[in-house]
């Protein structure tokens, strides 16, 4: 059983479109994250939710909007996609917001044309 799953795995879209990436974890964790990994493999945190509450909101364009309908899900919606949004987006979860192991999903490769 997959611990942290993301859909879709690949997403190819045109500039200006709106798209969503979904993430689900079945580990019973309280905290979930979204990371962006660029073409040079640099991994940067975007958002974190703890018990459906936003606790980390890095300097990310407000075209990016996370939504956590419940503890097990953290979705990422992106409006007006730009070329620079092309990257691999990783969802992760951890037991709580204290330092601990994070469990990563397989990633969603977003390509904006």
């Amino acid at each position, binding site marked *: 059983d997959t611990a*942290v799953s993301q859909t879709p795995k690949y997403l190819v879209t045109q500039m200006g479109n709106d798209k969503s990436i979904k993430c689900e974890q079945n580990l019973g964790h309280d905290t979930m*994250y979204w990371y962006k990994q660029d073409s*040079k*493999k*640099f*991994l*940067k*945190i975007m958002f*974190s939710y*703890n018990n459906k509450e936003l*606790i*980390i909101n*890095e300097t990310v364009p407000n075209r990016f909007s996370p939504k956590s309908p419940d503890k097990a899900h953290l979705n990422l919606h992106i409006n007006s996609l730009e070329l620079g949004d092309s990257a691999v987006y*990783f969802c*992760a979860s951890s037991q709580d*917001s*204290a*330092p601990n*192991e*994070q469990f*990563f*999903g*397989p*990633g969603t490769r977003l390509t904006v044309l």
Partner: protein
Amino acid sequence: AQSVTQPDIHITVSEGASLELRCNYSYGATPYLFWYVQSPGQGLQLLLKYFSGDTLVQGIKGFEAEFKRSQSSFNLRKPSVHWSDAAEYFCAVGARGSGTYKYIFGTGTRLKVLA
């Protein structure tokens, strides 16, 4: 500001040789340190972590890391590399921000293993 530096972008070793991947961090308080591995097309998997106590920590897949506070380092080692170890390795620090912790990752070291 907190930061993590992995000085080596690429490392190539022969199978069976020993390995050391370097990681230096900048953080004012006691760091929470991690090493993750990313295989091609996959998410990251935790190899080991250091929070406190014994400065030499053992992880999965035969890896170990040593925390050296005086050098602000947390280098990853393996005595004998296997071809399956070829992957990208990330060092990370858990740093306290505005009321919570966030994770700062290094830029990664790509390991290539020669048969």
